């Protein structure tokens, strides 16, 4: 497995009227070539900030990378100059955004918008760039690409626009694609099409994908590995099967039991996680999830848990994993269900 990106102990903060907001607090993960890593969490958990940090697209006026490294191809992106980072964006690392309605420039034809990236990173004649753009549009499934290339975003539907955004992102065959909630703003049927398209293109180009989402259904469909984020930290990470079948963290349990399942007993109600995510400018002491956790121990309210390795691929941050903690059984109905999918990396 070839590691292409590794994030180590990343801390990102914002500054506002209310003081410092620690949006990302000590996040670490790796991404391997050609695989999909899903980062899951509620809104405000810091997953989008993490994604934008990798691209260094956060607003400079009010945000700062406090510490940590983002290693990519022998370089530390955190220390890269703006100019070097610009060369990387779009050519090696690309991004697809949440809302295709707003992420395209309304006054520029889509052809021009796709071509812009090509012209920036690849030396090619106008004509080749044009032909390549038509190819790209065809590749992402836009009918009549020769015609549509000269149209404006408002002449496209939401799903079609997201296809254009994907074409833009893939224009230069990047090694890595960061997809920030790529289907959240779309209709369910369109969602499935876009996900299929992404999977297909990933297979074709061997692109690694970091998929940011709150939708566990999307995760199950796309990812090989999963990181669960809460309040700017990764609570648990592991392979898809580990997270879905042997989840260790009460927050993961909560996420899973609040997800509707196709074959589950319909009489069992969906259980939401009580409470709301903490205010990142006034974090409680101890584990950030403790105030909402029904298994919380006294220690949880005072000390942050360290990382526990459950297997070589499975890590969790929870005091329940401590030897001295009482043994807690994960609630009924989580994991267990058949998904008709072979696990690729079994827990050791």
């Amino acid at each position, binding site marked *: 497995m070839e590691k292409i990106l590794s994030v180590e102990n990343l801390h990102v903060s914002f500054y506002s009227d209310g003081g410092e907001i620690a949006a990302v607090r000590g996040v670490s993960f790796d991404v391997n070539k050609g695989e999909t890593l899903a980062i899951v969490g509620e809104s405000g958990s810091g997953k989008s900030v993490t994604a934008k940090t990798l691209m260094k*697209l956060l607003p400079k006026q009010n945000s700062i990378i406090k510490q940590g490294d983002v290693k990519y191809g022998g370089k530390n992106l955190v220390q890269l100059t703006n100019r070097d980072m610009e060369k990387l964006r779009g050519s090696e690392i690309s991004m697809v955004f949440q809302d295709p309605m707003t992420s395209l420039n*309304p006054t520029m034809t889509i052809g021009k918008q796709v071509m*812009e990236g090509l012209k920036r990173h690849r030396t090619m004649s106008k004509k080749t760039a044009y032909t390549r753009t038509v190819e790209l549009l065809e590749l992402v499934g836009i009918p009549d690409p020769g015609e549509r290339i000269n149209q404006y975003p408002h002449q496209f539907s939401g799903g079609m626009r997201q296809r254009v955004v994907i074409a833009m992102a893939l224009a230069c065959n990047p090694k890595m694609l960061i997809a920030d909630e790529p289907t959240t703003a779309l209709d369910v049927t369109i969602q499935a099409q876009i996900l299929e398209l992404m999977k297909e293109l990933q297979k074709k180009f061997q692109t690694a994908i970091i998929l940011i989402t709150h939708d566990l259904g999307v995760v199950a469909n796309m990812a090989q590995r999963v990181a669960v984020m809460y309040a700017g930290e990764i609570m648990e990470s592991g392979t898809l099967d580990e997270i879905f079948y042997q989840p260790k963290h009460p927050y993961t349990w909560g996420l899973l039991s609040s997800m509707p399942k196709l074959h589950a007993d319909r009489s069992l109600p969906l259980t939401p996680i009580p409470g709301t995510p903490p205010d990142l400018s006034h974090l409680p002491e101890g584990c950030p999830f403790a105030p909402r956790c029904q298994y919380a121990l006294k220690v949880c309210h005072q000390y942050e848990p360290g990382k526990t390795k459950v297997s070589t691929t499975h890590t969790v941050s929870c005091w329940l994993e401590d030897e001295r903690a009482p043994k807690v059984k994960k609630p009924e109905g989580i994991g267990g269900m058949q998904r008709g999918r072979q696990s690729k990396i079994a827990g050791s």
Partner: protein
Amino acid sequence: MRNYFLSRLGYMLVTLLIIVTATFFFMQLLPGTPFNNPEKLTEQQLLSLNEKYGLDKPIALQYFIYLGNLLQFDLGLSFQYEGRTVESIIGSRIGPSALIGLQAVVFGTAAGLLLGMISALKHNSFLDYTSVFIAVLGMSVPSFVFAALMQYYLGVKLQWLPAALWRGWEYTIMPSLALSVMVIATVARFIRTEMLEVLGQDYVVTARAKGLTEKAVIVKHVVRNALIPVVTMLGPLTVGIMTGTLVIEKIFAVPGLGEQFTLSIMVNDYSVIMGITLFYSSLFILVVMIVDILYGVLDPRISLKGEG
């Protein structure tokens, strides 16, 4: 698009007709007689003058005669200048007004754009605060106050520029500058708000994510999109320039339309007042319509809606 155009044209004509009618009947209500030194005229002379200018006919008839003449661009005879038609007076006066007006718009827009863009790109910096303050100053200080002070200090005291009159290009500098203050301020404020708005848009992040250089992002995506709505400022700017010329031409003794207008007001030259009023109104309405059409051309989102 065509329907939209036609409905705009319809509004334009209705508005013009209302202005013509209102102006005409307002003029009938005006106190005083329109003739030079009426106290020196005999009864007989007054009657013959009234007959000459058609003032002896019933008002309704006068109105329709006036409308008919208007259709042939005939604005009638001046009451003040013997034998001169209003359109020839307007024609002879328009040059200087147009010159200082255009100079003010061109210089003011350029300076305003520069100021506003710097302001937006250096948002919340000292530079931003300074240019915002300059803009507020330019919006607030009445143009005639600014013009009078400039004339006194630059023209009378320091004698850097000619204080008044109209004898060459250097005589246009101060009037144009005085007029442009309002333009600079309005444009700077407008483009700053627009730029800040565009800078916060998702598609700017998309452009950055493509790896475009910061310069390309600003020029191709931010500035281009922020500039489109600036054309809507043309309407208010025209009004501002027209208002400005009335006082500024008076201050700097520019032989333009504005000076003629204030002069005609002083001597009750009704036909000239009416003519210039109509001229100004038509100009304004025309500009507003051009702006509407231009906006549709510049912004691809609008051209398709085609609705009035």
